[in-house]
């Protein structure tokens, strides 16, 4: 089962592969040098290459070709990684009124493509609880009326539909908060006095999202907001 959304898993595996390669290369080199180049017995007969003496700036020990190599090769890797992670930006921050983005146009606006459109909901953060507002979407698409007990506090439950796309407009009443949909791997700050936005593409592990009661996962607050920052969580349930 993936960590978060498919995009995240793809990026994560790719970065993990490269980290393994770079890590192995560096640690093998380190291990080799620190074992092979040990001073053998005591330290009197070592072959003093650079002749280091007190008060004398030591002989330069550089090799331009090598240094250029390990400047350019990491740079190329970095350029490749930037290029590789440039693509998903269009998914995480798609443009709401660009018809051929992943999420298309808003469902119901003229000219929207029916099987590629998104619904707009709004999420308001307040000092220490979330308010989900489905607007006039019908309950089957988005419903935020239920509450459920979560470790001692009553928290709202946001019911979304698998396969639908949602654009959440975020704002806050008092201080900064940030809804983090742990399973979908997205978060964005709710800043008071500013309207930010976040794309949510709910998915389930099992194809029918665990029967009718749906698969639930957590929404945590990930921008420090004071006393009950840890209790300011909510539940998102994805139904089929």
């Amino acid at each position, binding site marked *: 089962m993936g960590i978060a959304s498919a995009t995240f898993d793809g990026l994560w595996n790719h970065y993990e592969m490269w980290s393994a390669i770079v890590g192995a290369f560096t640690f093998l080199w380190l291990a080799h040098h620190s074992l092979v180049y040990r001073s053998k017995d005591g330290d009197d007969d070592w072959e003093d290459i650079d002749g280091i003496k007190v008060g004398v700036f030591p002989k330069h020990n550089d090799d331009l070709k090598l240094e250029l190599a390990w400047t350019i090769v990491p740079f190329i890797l970095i350029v490749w990684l930037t290029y590789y992670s440039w693509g998903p930006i*269009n998914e995480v921050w798609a*443009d709401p009124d660009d018809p051929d983005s992943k999420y298309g146009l808003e469902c119901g606006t003229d000219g929207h493509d029916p099987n590629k459109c998104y619904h707009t909901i709004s999420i308001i953060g307040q000092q220490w609880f979330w308010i989900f507002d489905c607007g006039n979407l019908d309950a089957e698409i988005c419903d935020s009326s239920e509450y459920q007990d979560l470790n001692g506090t009553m928290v709202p439950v946001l019911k979304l539909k698998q396969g639908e796309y949602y654009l959440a407009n975020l704002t806050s009443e008092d201080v900064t908060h940030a809804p983090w949909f742990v399973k979908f791997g997205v978060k964005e700050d709710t800043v008071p006095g500013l309207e*930010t*936005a*976040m794309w949510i593409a709910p998915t389930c592990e099992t194809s029918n999202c665990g029967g009718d009661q749906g698969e639930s996962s957590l929404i945590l607050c990930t921008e420090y907001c004071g006393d009950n920052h840890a209790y300011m969580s909510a539940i998102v349930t994805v139904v089929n």
Partner: protein
Amino acid sequence: MNFYGLMILTAIEVGAVGVDLSAFAESIGATEKQLTFGILWGIGIPKFIMIAAIFMHLYGDADSKILTMTALFPAFFIIVMIFFIGLTSPGAPTDLPAWCRPPSWL
């Protein structure tokens, strides 16, 4: 000499704001605000240079050149701060401009 120059420039500056320039502004097709803005910059920069160069010995002494380099060293960091903090305003990530977005085939 430098002193009198500064006094005159300041007098012009204050005068430019005090006097009602709207008529003159219309004639060159700008609002009075833009005209005052232009005048203030036009006078502010020479005053800045006169004080720095003459009063602060950044011109004409043996150590002037190297000290001018020291004075100008933070220029890069000032520009970075003015652009990053001064001239940006908060916004939602969805209105990322087109030139930042990846090409469609990616």
